[in-house]
């Protein structure tokens, strides 16, 4: 299991941004369990302090953005003079942090003028000081239980620290893949990354060569046409090549359109199935109320007839012939009210008691019937949308087929016209063909290499996917527990593997990923939110924060820290209180965890609620 950092202490010395007070020079903070707030107005260095915490751990690097980046480095340089720029003189400034990973504490000291490592050691090996940055990186990865330093930086950037740049995780499926790869497959993480680089590199080289090949073929064609006397064939060849190029472009556009139509079709199918189920649920709930209302009236009637009569009253359809049965339903209702036999309408030979429906049941029946009607309308809308999506998908498929057919014809036409060129032209063509053929073989070789790497990576990706699926229930459960308390709407975290290619061409793989389903404020159905722009700013940020908390909870059984800059920024009054509860629950209720927040002085419940459990020792480090 991975091990996330738990910040115990930070000491900053000789840095003008934190001069200290009286005899206590510099800044010292001991972060024990619970929520910690760095409180103050803008410009006092709250965000800088959180950044110092981060770069004490990772040094002068940042992770490259997620995605299949081939053989480029996963790390980008971070301006090592960043903290020096903030003050006039930082030549002697140092920062020291004590960070616990499970049972081991790592002590790190860096110069703030250039982020150089000046000292580091582990609490279980304090005699041996870590001498170089490379050694330090190895130790960090080792303590975090990850494959390498690159994965450590990714995990810190996407889970532990939620800072001003707001790098997203829940809204970025590529980042999710990299995080799951780091956390759940440390033994194969490096191999996965290498194969991914091979695929991207081979794919990219094959495409570049293909582009060169294409240019060579085009150049050869135009050269022949330019140098020879104009014939009808040559003129037609020019036209045919132009048409082929245009069709190939159209094919790409049609493919993109089909992918988008397919996604919409999948979503609409889910909506219809759910709407059908919702109608059935509403119908059954209504029948249940009816059953209670009618159970006295049904006395003496066989179960089969009871069920049929119930269906007539609830569905207002005759189950036998399928006709509308409003009249029959009305008659049955009248008989019930008068305590007559439901089947023949005659007086019952009973004890004379007239069973009347209570107001509560009557009102419940009306409510449920209204709900049923609402659900039926929603189903109608969902079916219309689904049919429209199917139609769009069908048209997109037809369009793609048509474009492909035309492309094939255009290719045939180009070949046919080339063959009709005069022999001297064909000889020249043959010489060019040799070069072209050589290039084609090279393209094939690179494609074959890509396919080999794809075969190898497939099994590893399956392992990673299975590992994620083994944890998904717990992750979803942890997410739901926290998110329920925060959002008024129903929000679900749903595992939904993403299908994607690693290169631009080649095989499609499945990558582990989660997405969010939310009930829209305007409608009652659940809608899948795949991108951050489909939700409000506060929802976007807090869903990400809750996701990170859930990951920390799911993948670590030891203490850990969550560091958030500006958690109050996007909140209104209602959500401010809930945000206070959210951070409090993470920092307070877990045995050895803390949250470190930097925020402005704000009114409302956020800060009092956040510190509610710690009022007796309010831990505000006033900046």
């Amino acid at each position, binding site marked *: 299991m991975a091990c996330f950092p738990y910040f115990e202490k930070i000491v900053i010395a000789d840095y003008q941004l934190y001069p200290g007070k009286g005899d206590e020079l510099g800044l010292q903070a001991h972060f024990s369990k619970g929520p910690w707030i760095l409180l103050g107005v803008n410009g006092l260095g709250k965000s800088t302090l959180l950044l110092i915490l981060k770069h004490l751990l990772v040094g002068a690097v940042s992770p490259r953005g997620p995605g299949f980046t081939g053989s480029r480095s996963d790390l980008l340089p971070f301006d090592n003079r960043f903290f020096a720029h903030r003050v006039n003189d930082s030549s002697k400034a140092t920062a020291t942090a004590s960070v616990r990973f499970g049972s081991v504490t790592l002590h790190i000291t860096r110069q703030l003028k250039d982020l150089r490592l000046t000292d580091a050691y582990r609490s279980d090996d304090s005699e041996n000081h870590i001498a170089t940055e490379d050694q330090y990186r190895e130790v960090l990865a080792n303590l975090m239980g990850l494959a390498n330093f690159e994965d450590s930086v990714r995990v810190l950037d996407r889970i532990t620290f939620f800072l001003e740049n707001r790098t997203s995780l829940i809204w970025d499926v590529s980042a999710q893949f990299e995080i799951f790869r780091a956390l759940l497959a440390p033994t194969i993480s490096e191999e996965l990354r290498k194969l991914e680089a091979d695929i991207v590199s081979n794919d990219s080289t094959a495409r570049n060569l293909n582009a060169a090949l294409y240019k060579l073929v085009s150049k050869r064609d135009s050269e022949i046409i330019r140098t020879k006397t104009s014939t009808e064939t040559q003129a037609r060849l020019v036209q045919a090549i132009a048409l082929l190029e245009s069709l190939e472009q159209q094919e790409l556009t049609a493919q993109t359109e089909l992918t988008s139509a397919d996604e919409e079709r999948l979503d609409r*199918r*889910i909506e219809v*199935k*759910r709407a*059908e*189920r919702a*109608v*059935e*649920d509403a119908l*059954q*709930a209504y*029948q*249940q109320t009816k*059953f209670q209302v009618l159970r006295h009236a049904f006395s003496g009637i*066989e*179960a*089969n007839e*009871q*069920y*049929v009569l*119930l*269906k007539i009253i609830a*569905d207002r*359809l*005759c*189950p*036998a*012939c*399928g*006709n*509308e049965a409003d009249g029959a339903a009305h008659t049955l209702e009248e008989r019930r009210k008068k305590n007559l036999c439901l089947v023949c309408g005659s007086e019952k030979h009973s004890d004379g008691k007239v069973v009347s429906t209570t107001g509560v049941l009557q009102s419940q029946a009306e409510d449920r019937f209204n709900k049923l009607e609402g659900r039926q309308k929603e189903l109608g809308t969902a079916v219309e949308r689904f049919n429209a999506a199917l139609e769009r998908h069908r048209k997109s498929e037809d369009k793609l087929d048509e474009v492909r057919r035309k492309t094939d014809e255009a290719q045939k036409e180009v070949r046919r016209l080339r063959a009709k060129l005069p022999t001297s032209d064909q000889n020249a063509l043959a010489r060019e063909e040799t070069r072209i053929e050589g290039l084609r073989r090279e393209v094939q070789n690179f494609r074959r290499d890509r396919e080999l790497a794809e075969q190898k990576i497939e099994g590893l990706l399956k392992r990673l*996917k299975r590992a994620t*699926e*083994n944890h*998904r*229930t717990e992750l*979803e459960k942890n997410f739901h527990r926290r998110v329920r308390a925060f959002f008024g709407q129903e929000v*679900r975290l*749903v*595992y*939904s*593997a993403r299908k994607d290619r690693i290169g631009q061409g080649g095989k499609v793989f*499945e990558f582990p990923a989660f997405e969010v*389903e939310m009930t829209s404020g305007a409608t009652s159905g*659940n809608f899948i939110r795949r991108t951050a722009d489909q939700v409000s700013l506060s929802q976007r940020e807090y869903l990400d924060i809750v996701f990170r908390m859930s990951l920390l909870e799911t993948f670590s059984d030891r203490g850990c820290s969550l560091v958030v800059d500006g958690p109050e920024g996007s909140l209104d009054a209602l959500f401010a209180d809930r945000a206070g509860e959210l951070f409090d629950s993470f920092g307070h209720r877990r045995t050895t965890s803390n949250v470190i927040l930097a925020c402005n002085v704000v009114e409302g419940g956020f800060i009092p609620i956040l510190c509610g459990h710690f009022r007796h020792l309010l831990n505000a480090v006033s900046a």
Partner: protein
Amino acid sequence: MRETTIVSLMTRARLVQIMAALERNGATPIPSRSLHSFAFFANVLSPIWDLTPLDGSVLKEKSGPFYPALQREIDYLIGRSVLTVVSLKSMGHGEASFIEPSLRLSKANAQPVLEVVDALPDEQMTARFLDQLAAAFVEITPDERTDAATLDAAYSDPAVASGRIVDFAEWVEPTFGNPAWSTAQAFQQYMPSNMVLNRAEKLAMYMRLIKKRAANG
């Protein structure tokens, strides 16, 4: 009036065949939720017998598969006295409450339908498949039959979240895209080289696996 489509007719005919198979194997009266569970197995396992499933997908729910279209046909056949409600039971609580009928086939009324359906060559194969399936299904304890479907390889696929669609034959290959089919085929690997499992044996072994999983909770 509710429109009778070819799909609803096929579902109705399949339902009568299913109930007949369950009757022959002593699995009636059957609660309607267990009937949905059986219908699911009939769909997901029919590719083992090279039969086309009536429904190639179903909404994944914690309570097990439920087919609204099948439920409509159950109601219709009750109304036409082809199915008989033996008892009614109130299930669940509050908004989630429903009335569950226990059903059996009315032989006299179903016989003419069965004669017509069984006269169709491809439906004879379906009837044999359903018989084998019912014989295996009846081995599962009645209390566990409703939940048994949730243990199916396709339905319990951890890659499909609750509230999403279990697709085993609609937009995927009913064979290689269907985990239940793949599981049933995988039994062959454990057989001696001189023994080739037939489809009935694969079906029986698969349902025995489900029974075992159901019994172990």
